[in-house]
């Protein structure tokens, strides 16, 4: 899996900020996916998330000469935190509805999340139905057919609904999901906004970050500092 950071170096001219939220029942692997995507790590014994975690990661979209920066809100799946979730998908540009391919019930719950998103989330949100734990292929309960069947039933709604399967453990397909989402996002619209110079028309967050794209890459600086620290004797 190619590190997304490398590609960023080539295309630093334009950075588009998008908010992404992860939904799903507890223990489907939301946090694992995020960590695989952001840090390229996997923890077998990850503790359940409290509230909602915040992480960022960028994805290059070379054909449009743009870098998509995801602000990821990784929500907790536990019932207790259900009331927190609407707050995060309300302003989101994309949502990952994660289920566990070894558990049909969790797939049903993911469908519920999609329904809820369709009702409550802002229009134009990119939804991706993600089947996690692909490494447990032998225990698979939710087949590809079921997913495609469901997606077909959704046809005609204004939201873009993608579907994907991945394994946070092995890392298979994780990056692919984010790449696909990045391409499904309304990048052209964002480009036009910049071109028109009409900042602050659509969403505050996007304009805010749009202005800053040309600035210093603090993240990289930090990384260099860390390397420096690592190489020094103390």
């Amino acid at each position: 899996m190619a590190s997304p950071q490398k590609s960023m170096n080539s295309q630093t001219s334009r950075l588009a900020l998008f908010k992404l939220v992860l939904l799903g029942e507890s223990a489907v692997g939301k946090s694992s996916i995020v960590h695989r995507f952001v840090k390229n790590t996997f923890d077998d014994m990850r503790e359940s998330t409290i509230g909602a975690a915040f992480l960022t990661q960028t994805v290059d979209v070379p054909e449009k000469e743009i870098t998509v920066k995801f602000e990821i809100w990784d929500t907790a799946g536990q019932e207790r935190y259900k009331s927190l979730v609407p707050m995060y998908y309300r302003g989101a540009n994309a949502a990952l509805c994660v289920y566990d391919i070894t558990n049909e019930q969790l797939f049903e719950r993911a469908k519920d999340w999609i329904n809820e998103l369709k009702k409550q989330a802002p229009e134009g949100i990119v939804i991706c139905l993600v089947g996690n734990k692909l490494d447990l292929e032998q225990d698979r309960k939710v087949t590809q057919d079921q997913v495609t069947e469901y997606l077909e039933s959704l046809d005609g709604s204004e939201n873009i609904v993608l579907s994907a399967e991945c394994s946070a453990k092995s890392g298979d397909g994780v990056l692919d999901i984010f790449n696909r989402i990045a391409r499904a996002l309304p990048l052209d619209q964002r480009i036009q906004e910049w071109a028109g110079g009409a900042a602050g028309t659509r969403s505050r967050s996007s304009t805010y970050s749009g202005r800053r794209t040309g600035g210093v890459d603090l993240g990289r600086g930090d990384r260099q500092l860390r390397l420096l620290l690592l190489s020094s004797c103390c």
Partner: protein
Amino acid sequence: MSTNSPELRRNKRVLGSPFKSPVKNLANIDAASPSNDVPHNNSNVTSIRNDIDHPSVKNKEIKPILEIFCPICKESMISLNQLNQHIDDEHQKTDEQNLSPEPPVVRRELQIDLLNGDKGFSLSIDEGRKNGNENIRAGLKLSRDANPLKVSPSPSPGAGARGSLRSNERLSRNHWQTPASGSKCSIEGCNKTLSVKQGIVNCRRCGKLFCNVHTNFKVRLRNGPDSNSIPIFESLKYGIWSRVCRNCYNDKLDSIKIVEPKVEDLTGTFKRIRMKKNEDKELMRNKIKKRFIKLVELLVDEDVKKKQRKSQISKWNLFGGSDTNEPTVLEQAIEIVGHDNWMEDSKTHNCTICYIHFNMITRKHHCRLCGSIVCDDLFGERKLCSIMVPINQLLDKLKNLNYGANARSQFLFLLLNECSIRFRCCINCKNHLLYEWKQSQQAKLDLNSTDKLVPLFETNKLLIILKDQIVRYMNRFEYLFQKNEATNGDEIEQVREKLLVYLKDYEGCSNQIKQSFYGRVNNALKLRPEFVDNERLINNVYRGSVFFLQDNLVKFKLLSDKLSELTQMELEDSKNHFAQIEGVQISKNSPTPIGTPEPRLTKKQIRELREQLMVMNEQRFLVENLIDDTIKQRKFDELGSLKENKTELIKRINELEKELGEFGF
């Protein structure tokens, strides 16, 4: 008896003496002239009985003490005391029975000099004779104005009795009322017709006829002065036990009252003696304590010196020695105890405590605190008369004494280290020394026994408070429930909540008692052994709490079950309402505060809202931390959305708090 003049007191002593000290009397009788055969009232009972039962001996000299035998059964006696006792025990009844057929007794008159003839303590029957038999009863009184030196009046009745008995051994029956058919009991209000069954009894004194019931009284009587007069009371030995009526018996009690018993209040004396003894003990304790302080000072000082010397010796030579020093220490020790108290070896042969004789093995030892010579129990066979006490043991127990400078400076060192400084101390001094410590120890022990129960009392206090509240709210709850109107739904819910909380607290307290005082033995709840002393108290408290809890829980459950049916419907309603509000909020994206007509919150709603509020607060905390982190890491581009989220969270929190209103935390 405060008014007792010395004379009177002497009188009394005289009166009592014949019976108190028969031996002395006998000696006196021996001393008296044998020819004097006037019976003396003060003479010993034995001699009298002798005379009565064996008239043949009447003129004989009384035998020496060695040949004492019972006049009735001829049993030989060791002492007169024993004989007296023997006659009282064995021949009391036979005495009475035998008395009547006895021939008249001629008594000897004895001149008895109780203490000293010169002083005129002689007792003579003549005095009684002179007074005449009419005065006999009066003679029972203590004639206070009688010549104290001469005659005690009490003997006179005896003399009179004997006089009359001589003429008539039986009580006179001249005055007896003769029974007639239909005669009734003479007691007022009895009215029983006398018959063989009811009894036809003449009172031996007044001679009237009575029934059996009213003559169940016995007094000692003797004949009156002349044959026609009624018998009179005789409280002394030679009175004849006779059956009398109730009236006469009561009369007799009066006569007894006249003879004032000798009462001496010794409480004051006792107290005085006791106080003095206590004071002596206290004094002794103080003395011992002072000596102990001095001794400790001396020993510690010596110890320090010895150490110094040792180091010197090790430095210089092994010359010199401790023996030059040893006597001086002893000298000083004697000085502390005092030369007077220091017992001399040559004069003492036995241990002052266990009295064991000293010999080669059992050596003499001086107690360094009291100076007495005691044995040393090396093998623990005898009780511990003395031991070598390490002073740190005592110092540990007597921390507050006013020790000298040396001891004070070394105090901690002495306490903490194994102490080589010892001295000989006897068990008495040890007890004196540790008396106060033992007292305090005892006090502590007493305190501890109640200490164990302190948690019980505290819990009980709490239980009582909670009980009050539960009863109050239970009543209110019932009342509201019976009214059962939609308007007080809020209140009833409130009351129910509170009741639930109190009941839970109560249960908790009850469980606390269970846990701290009971243990499980074979699946049964058993009081822990350490609390057995207060078994009843604990059991009652615990049982009471359990019963109360059971009663109220059942009641509460019944009521709240009924209530929940009612609220279920309300819940549905409000749920819909709530959902609407939520929907409005979400669709608007920037939720407006909830309308002023606050939705009536059901318990479930409140719980949910509270949960939400908690989650929000948690999240706010998380986000704030995240913001801090990003600032630290200088990722300012991420700061924006975090801050945005934070404001959103705060907004939501405010909304929730508003919604919860009075139900908030």
